């Protein structure tokens, strides 16, 4: 499922990916395992979340951007 809605907000799938990153996952495989989502969906979702400015990628590893951290904190 798409991880970012047309209005730029993360979908429930997107939030699951962001939470997995917050919980320490950093690779697509790790996120797939923590979020219990198919690997192809995670790869696609991370791309969308990165475009939305919620995630940063460095050498194949992903982490929350400041914007992503704020969003996850406000979501509780």
């Amino acid at each position, binding site marked *: *499922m*798409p*991880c970012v809605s047309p209005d730029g907000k993360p979908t429930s799938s997107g939030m699951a990916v962001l939470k997995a990153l917050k919980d320490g996952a950093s690779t697509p495989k790790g996120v797939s395992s923590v979020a219990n989502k*198919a*690997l*192809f*969906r995670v*790869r*696609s*979702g991370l*791309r*969308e979340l990165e475009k939305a400015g919620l995630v940063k990628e460095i050498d194949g590893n992903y982490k929350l951007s400041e914007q992503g951290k704020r969003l996850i904190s406000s979501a509780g």
Partner: protein
Amino acid sequence: MTEEEHIEDVGLPVLGKKAPDFEVLTTHGTLKLSDFEGTWLVLFSHPADFTPVCTTEFIAFSKIYDELKKRNTEFLGLSVDSVSSHIAWMRNIEKKMRVKIQFPIIADLNKEVAKKYGMVHPAQSKTQTVRCVFVIDPEGKIRAMIYYPLTTGRNMKEILRLIDALQITDKHKVATPTNWKPGDPVVVPPPATAEQAEERLKEGYKCKDWYLCLKKL
């Protein structure tokens, strides 16, 4: 150049070669072929949404999806319809047939993927994709292809059997005989030298002759 001539100019994918790359809009967002790296992929096309044979196929594809996932394999459907059409059709199948389609479907409106994979056969239809199945391995190589005409729905058991056969072949370096199914004996690769042919007969395989030996896994 007519569209028919143009389509005929496009080569078919080749077994054992890298599958043509793509980045496409699907019912699950934008997907790239590389998103499936590390998993087996069954890329299949259907002629059109809201058509009878395709609907029976999608219900059947959906019913074997869990079995497919147990084999580290994903489905990716395709037709030249829009994402909105795919969504409406999926919702209709769920409402009327009580089957939820959980795998993504490509909206190949400009036939970009269809042309790369030779999915449009003008003698069948100039506008619709025929019923193709491409099995792509975790390294992105084309491992098997099936082409069915518009009028004939595909056999799900054969698709599962094909995946099983390819995975067994890779894991054990064997081949599978006609009508093979999981649990049946497999074919030991033919010997490359006269010495191997002689030794083979002593190795405890069930041999009809030196070139046709079967074994249980």
